[in-house]
């Protein structure tokens, strides 16, 4: 039987049960790493480093976890703060090569769209648009919850989601048009 987060947290804090914490890491590693990969613009190594750092910080702060939100929500906030700190220290340069590579790959693969095309198109969105779309669609958070997690007003989140989707549609539509034109 799979134990709930509450029980595992209780065991990790009060019983100093490292195995319980390892179960939490195992349970959420994929979700957190995927979320961070979206925000790191494809830099998987950076996303994994930030995720590892977040799990370590969460372990040290676990006794102070108030349980006002789900464990993953709390963990995500820790990871997000780490990522923001990282970007403040190392201001990222726009990865134009990655974008061009993505476009070239899509053009070569034909007009039928798939999930990977969406991932490539996502790279062209702004970081807040990507994050807002990921939180609301992939992770299933409401706009209000996403606003809380991103520490932005609700209206701004809605705007990021709407503009992100509009931009995605434009990008994907343009790519398809290019392919159709090339095939004449």
């Amino acid at each position, binding site marked *: 039987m799979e134990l709930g987060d509450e029980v595992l947290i209780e065991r990790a804090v009060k019983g100093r049960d490292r195995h319980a914490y*390892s179960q939490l890491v195992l349970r959420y590693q994929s979700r957190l790493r995927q979320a961070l990969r979206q925000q790191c613009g494809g830099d998987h190594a950076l996303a994994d480093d930030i*995720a590892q750092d977040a799990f370590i910080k969460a372990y040290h702060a676990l006794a102070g976890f108030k349980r006002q939100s789900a464990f993953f929500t709390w963990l995500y906030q820790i990871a997000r703060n780490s990522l923001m700190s990282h970007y403040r220290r190392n201001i990222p340069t726009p990865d134009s090569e990655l974008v061009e590579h993505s476009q070239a790959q899509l053009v070569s693969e034909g007009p039928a769209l798939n999930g990977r095309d*969406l991932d490539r198109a996502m790279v062209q969105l702004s970081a807040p648009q990507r994050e807002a779309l990921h939180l609301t669609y992939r992770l299933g958070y409401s706009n209000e919850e996403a606003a809380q997690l991103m520490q932005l007003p609700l209206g701004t989140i809605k705007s990021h989601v709407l503009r992100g989707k509009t931009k995605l549609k434009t990008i994907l539509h343009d790519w398809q048009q290019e392919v159709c034109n090339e095939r004449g």
Partner: protein
Amino acid sequence: MSADKLDAWLEQTLAAQEPYLDDDGFTAGVMASLPAPVSRRQLWLANLSVGLVVALLVALVFPWGNLISVLTGLGDRAWLTLAAAVSGVFTTAVLAGGYWSYQRWS
């Protein structure tokens, strides 16, 4: 793909479940980076050490030379106040040291 179809495809794909990322040693890496667990005996020794250091510091700054004259000159109430203050400081220091070591090494 028409605009409507693209719209529907986008909604569906955005909401699609992501593939599960294989752990591939990630959890082991996190667990290896956590501080090594400390036994209760080690924790007790660490607390005792902190307590002894604090006691030594208190003993060093305490005015032992004037103690007798100060104590005989004190009224009952003042003597009790002084005793309470000294033990309060000492207890607080020991508790703070214990809490710190508990947080640091547990």
